[in-house]
């Protein structure tokens, strides 16, 4: 299961991010480390990007990135 499989409002716990090391590092430094709870807030009107919430703040990331963040 990945972030985009969540329903709006639902939370999940990050298991692994299979991403390019640069963006992965950046997301981790913003607090998206394994075990962190993420909430899927909503999708943008045109279907991409998506709004997620981690450690109390809102973040916009693209769908193709979210698709590679698997949850426990």
């Amino acid at each position, binding site marked *: 299961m990945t972030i985009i499989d969540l329903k709006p409002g639902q939370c999940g716990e990050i298991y692994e991010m299979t991403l390019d090391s640069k963006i992965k590092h950046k997301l981790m430094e913003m607090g998206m480390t394994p075990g962190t709870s993420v909430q899927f807030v909503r999708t943008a*009107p*045109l279907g991409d990007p998506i709004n997620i919430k981690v450690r109390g703040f809102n973040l916009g990331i693209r769908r193709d990135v979210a698709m590679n963040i698997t949850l426990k």
Partner: protein
Amino acid sequence: MGHSYALTGNPNSGKTTIFNELTGSAQYVGNWSGVTVEKKEGFIKNSKINVVDLPGIYSMSSSSIDEVIALEYITEENPDGILNVVSASNLERNLYLTLQLMEMKVPVLMILNMMDELSRKNIKLDVDRLKEIFDIQIILTGQNDRKNLSRIKEIDLKGLKSNFARFSYFSKEIQDGIREIASHISLQTLTQYKADPQWLALKIMEGDNKIIEACCAKDAAIIEKAKAIRLIIEKSEGVEFSQLLAAQRYSYLGEIAGQVLIDADGNMDRESVSEKIDKIMTHRILAIPIFLGIMWTIYYITITGLGSKSIEVMEWLISDLFTGAVKALMVTMDVSTWLQSLVIDGVIGGVGAVLVFIPQIMILFFFISILEDSGYMARIAFVMDRIFKKFGLSGKSVIPMLVGSGCSVPGIMATRTLENERDRKLTILLTPFISCGAKMPVYLLFVSAFFAANSHWVVFSLYLLGIVTAMVSGVVLTKVRYKGVESDFILEMPPYRVPALKSVLLHMWDKGKDFLIRAGTIIFAASVIMWFAQSFDLSFQMVQDPSTSVLADFGRLVAPVFAPLGFGDWITSVAFITGFVAKEIVISTLSVLHGVSQGALGSSLTEFYTPLSAYSFMVFVLLASPCFAAISVMKRELGSWKETGFSILYQTGTAYLLSMAVYQIGSLFIK
């Protein structure tokens, strides 16, 4: 005394707000990440302490230009201390940077900002515990409560020491590695590169090329050793070293947050007001209509609502009151007629033509300032990303463009936050297509003369044309010139905040002042030059009819070039050329060369243009090369004349082709 401190913290944590409070400056504050893109210095009021406001950073690694500026300042300029601004309403992530600063073992004073937001969320913070953990002093502050900041003057940061257990949150292997490498760093390196050995060891292990290059490029042994340790750790953990560090730091921060944050209602994740607003603003169906509606309303109020009143008042002030008084004065003083003409037709005509529109420019900036300060900007970027992606850009390019709708200069500067070099260059080139405040007076003059019935629609159409041109250019240019990898899109969306009236008014006044200064300097000078050039012929004889002047000769030389766009007269050619200096000069030029007062300029224009050629005129002004100020910023940000030259040619070429298309195709249908 005579210390120098650096203000550092996460983007949007309130550094500039605090800098302004401390120094009494008026640097721009806005509610999105990446407002400050260059370092700004100032002295704390009534002291010799220098503070430097830096762009925000999430961590000690960086990718965009603004972040590099902040990082280099902290690691290379050796400030006497760091004022770490931490947003209390976003504690864990803000403390990530604090941890990294503590790892450097430099003097840190924490400024815990946004305490008001925390209490609004009904969360309590155990400040004593936080102090205890980091073993540092903490200054609490929030909106409307900045009195604690005065304590900074009383604390000598240079003398601060902390016994914070840095690195204790890393696994044993990493800690051992740090100690091992640190013990091998030569004394020479340490004296040359003033840094803490253990921090240096960690950086070498991480493989931070910049620091390795600066401190110990020649010491191959230590680099090898650090690399070996790193590889062993990476192998046993199966994770990249730097990611391992991040994960371990955050797990420690999670513990800290658990200890210091006490949620009064036991419901930390309840929906905030901001999230409720977002339900509407980023709603699937409503979001885009809302955005267009907001932009339309801004232009409607600026142009028709408040604007037309302000023009009437200004015209009365300048044409009737001021010009009348000056004329009467000169007549009583028996001033020669040519000097009268210089003052009335040249100076007052030229400068006045611009002054008339200054209230409207300020109204526009008032609204842009509200957009920037409310937090809506980031939402526009979020909503528009999909469209921008189609056109070869990222949603983050929206922010420079929106800032550019006030003025291209800060818009171009704002591209520093774009990490991707290709995106940045392209956005710099495209931002001037977005109509700026200085172009607005030109439209206002023309729409009131030619399209009085639906003036705001015409202006809005120009605004849209600018956006469409930027978008289509994005597609074309990514295909032919700016090839390269697509960018990532990671965008923080800050909570909505009620714009502080003081900072909105200050911003508006600041921009209005810029235009007033320009009116008093370059526009004044240009008007005087223009008056002389239209008053004399090649043999320096004063002419009766301006159309026999040097300027007219020159204008006629260029005029054929513009004939396909709908105007073959010398005045328009001169106006376009002076427009390269500053956009508002276009109307000063028209005013001086038509030789009529502000009120009459509109009707004088109707003799020269048809509504179609008037529209073509506005299209050219909208899209052609930006003004000198923007060109020089473009040159600085692009770093090369070649790129800058290409941009100017591309913009002017596009302007030419599109105005020609408007005029030629329009001619087929009209008349």
